[in-house]
């Protein structure tokens, strides 16, 4: 950027923390995964979280109550009824929240941004995050990976969550996982249950590898 107008707010490779977005449909387990990552990584990394609740500050409040992270490290933004707009088309409110956190905690290692629950086409802008995780769950039906959409096909990591529920909802895990690989080519897929492994060890390992 030119010398006369200050640092470029999108240019987060200069002393600002890497950002990982967590997106996916309503109720798939985005907040639960965020909490799991805070538990798994909060000791070794300086973390902060931005939530994009659709209605309230419910997700931020859940994370604060869960005690997985200092409440001052959690910011909630309003999305004006359009959660996908706030993470993709107009990322201003999220950038403001990230900047507030970076100002409060200058040595952050990672900022996690949870999107509001949205549809299969909702992905994060590259202006907002460096990497993104898309979370779907088995209860949405084993058709979801093969339906595709930018979330499933292009996210840096696809998480198929709640595998513990597969027998109860009649989801065929083999189909889900093989469809996911077929849709995504080389991009990774992790199937997990946060009931069985509450600290999301495989996802935490992937996150560490991105830093």
């Amino acid at each position, binding site marked *: 950027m030119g010398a006369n*107008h200050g640092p470029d707010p999108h240019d987060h490779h200069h002393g600002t923390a890497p950002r990982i977005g967590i997106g996916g449909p309503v109720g798939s387990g985005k907040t639960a995964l965020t909490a799991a990552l805070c538990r798994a990584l909060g000791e070794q990394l300086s973390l902060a979280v931005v939530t994009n609740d659709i209605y309230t500050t419910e997700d931020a409040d859940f994370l604060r109550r869960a005690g997985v992270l200092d409440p001052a490290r959690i910011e909630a933004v309003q999305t004006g009824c359009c959660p996908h707009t706030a993470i993709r088309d107009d990322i201003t409110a999220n950038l403001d929240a990230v900047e507030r956190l970076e100002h409060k905690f200058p040595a952050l290692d990672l900022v996690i941004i949870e999107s509001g629950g949205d549809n299969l086409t909702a992905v994060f802008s590259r202006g907002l995050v460096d990497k993104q995780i898309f979370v779907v769950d088995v209860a949405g039906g084993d058709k979801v990976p093969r339906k595709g959409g930018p979330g499933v096909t292009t996210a840096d990591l696809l998480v198929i969550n709640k595998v513990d529920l597969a027998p109860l909802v009649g989801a065929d895990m083999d189909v889900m996982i093989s469809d996911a690989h077929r849709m995504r080519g080389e991009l990774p897929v992790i199937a997990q249950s946060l009931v069985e492994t509450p600290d999301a060890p495989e996802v935490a390992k992937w996150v560490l590898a991105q830093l």
Partner: protein
Amino acid sequence: MLTALILADSRFPGGGHVHSGGLEEAAARRLVTDEPSLESFLHGRLLTTGLLAAGFAAAAARGEDLELLDLELDARTPSPAQREASRAQGRGMLRAARRAWPSARLASLPASPHQPLVIGVVVGDPYEAALTCAYLAVSGPASAAVRLLGLDPFGVNAIVAALPVEEVASRACKELPALGSPALDLLAEAHVRREGVRLFGS
């Protein structure tokens, strides 16, 4: 002219989509429920906050002292929530503008300026700046009404198209107004104190 069109476009990535200009609070209190009540809300907003903001956009475009204008607009905005909403939108617009239209005058603005100042500096022409600002004062709440109340988008668009936006912009070019809008101030203050469901930043 193109710059004004870009700033007024709802696709402009300046953070405007999370602000309802008091409409969310008005809808929650059932003060706005349908097209006639929306029309009256927008009319009132245009002739108070809209005219005031447009006057400052025009003054900034004329090249008046930005620091002084910023303070003057603070003095004319009694509600802290309204001041913060204007500065949040100014900050968002400035972030986008620095990339698209960098200039020394833009760089001289404070980090979180009032939005009308950014509009004035970026657009440059006083009438076009006032028009952009006056239009944005009503287009945001109108779009929020479509999203919150499920109003017919064609009906809402027709209401916006019939508002005296150009007349307000012309008036705004003549002098710096000092209008109050106590109802909007109260709605803005009630909105930031609202517990529970709140979809918009203002």
